[in-house]
């Protein structure tokens, strides 16, 4: 699938075929996509626990449910739990940056050297970040978010559907033996979409294009070119908006098929 079409198909899916398993190969593809994401100071914060719903005892699944994720957890055969390992920077003390110097990525042309990492970056930038919880968690969460987005798009590229949601960290920590240094981020439900890739249509956005994007300063909206919009419709990045005409009947049929209330 072309990249633009993958973006166009990305939407939070909440109705999955619960009986259809996700191929292990596709799970790995998603993990590989997450692994290749941009990563500040090459720290490698991201950790993911992949859980197969059908391998969980019923009482375990019940403990994992939050008020807004109960249906997703039941319907999606695969759950990804995303974490940031807050011990990543401290354990490596800048070594990943030196690895990038050795790989010709951080180069002397741009001021980089091992000495710079050891004598300035680690003591004055990285170590202070680890001691500032707000800044540390923001940095880690941002990085993990980028990786999560890549995993998410990889899911859609593989013909799957996915949806992020929050989770209760305490039962998950206990049930899946999560280390103390791991900061919980989000959970992602993954499976085959029961209403097809369209799933009711492309979701509306709460802010207009010009309300979100600016040019040169925060007061001048970035003007949206209708010709570009048409091009993106042809490329299937912009698709038919929700609700599609048949959506109500579709949701009603899905509710009855899946034993959900109306």
């Amino acid at each position, binding site marked *: 699938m072309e990249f633009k079409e993958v973006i166009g198909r990305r939407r939070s899916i909440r109705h999955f075929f*619960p009986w259809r398993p996700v191929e292990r190969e596709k799970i790995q593809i998603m993990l590989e996509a997450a692994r290749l994401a941009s990563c500040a100071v090459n720290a490698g914060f991201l950790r993911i626990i992949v859980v197969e719903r059908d391998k969980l005892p019923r009482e375990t699944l019940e403990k994992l*449910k939050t*008020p*807004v*994720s*109960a*249906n997703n*957890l*039941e*319907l999606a055969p695969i759950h990804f739990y995303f974490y940031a390992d807050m011990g990543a920077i401290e354990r490596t003390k800048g070594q990943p940056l030196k690895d990038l110097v050795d790989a010709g990525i951080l180069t002397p042309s741009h001021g980089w050297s091992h000495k710079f990492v050891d004598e300035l970056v680690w003591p004055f930038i990285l170590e202070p970040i680890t001691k500032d919880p707000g800044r540390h968690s923001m940095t880690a969460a941002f990085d993990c978010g980028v990786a999560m987005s890549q995993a998410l798009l990889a899911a859609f590229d593989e013909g799957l559907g996915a949806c992020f949601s929050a989770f209760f960290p305490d039962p998950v920590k206990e049930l899946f033996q999560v280390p103390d240094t791991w900061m919980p981020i989000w959970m992602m439900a993954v499976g085959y979409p029961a209403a097809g890739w369209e799933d009711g249509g492309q979701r509306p956005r709460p802010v207009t294009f010009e309300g979100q994007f600016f040019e040169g300063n925060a007061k001048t909206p970035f003007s949206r070119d209708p010709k570009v919009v048409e091009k993106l419709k042809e490329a299937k990045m912009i698709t038919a908006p929700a609700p599609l005409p048949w959506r*109500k009947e579709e949701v*009603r049929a899905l*509710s009855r098929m*899946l*034993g*959900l*209330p*109306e």
Partner: protein
Amino acid sequence: MATLRPMLEYDTVRTWLDGLRQHWGTDPLEDDPTRLEVLEMFCAFVDKEPDAVIRECFIHKEGERRMSLKGRRFYYDKIAEFQDSLEGEPRERVRGGNNIRSFFIHNGVFMQSGMQLG
């Protein structure tokens, strides 16, 4: 035992039916004529009138109406018990339970109970 009036006399029942009507665009009692009867059975099961049931899912705190997690959890479990107590085929029991869940949902009580397969 709570004395129940006809279901349509309760605000929360009318809210429920209005919600269904507005969301689906069809007559909720034509779609499923058992709705009111099963709600009445549930109210008898928990010994409460429908308005009281919904009231117990909310609390007032600092001048604001908020969800009562305890109340919602209580009724979440009661619905499951009620559903199990119904006679008939599993599909019918699920329909009964989901009708009650629908009553709560259209009265603003967020509820997800997962797939009900009977």
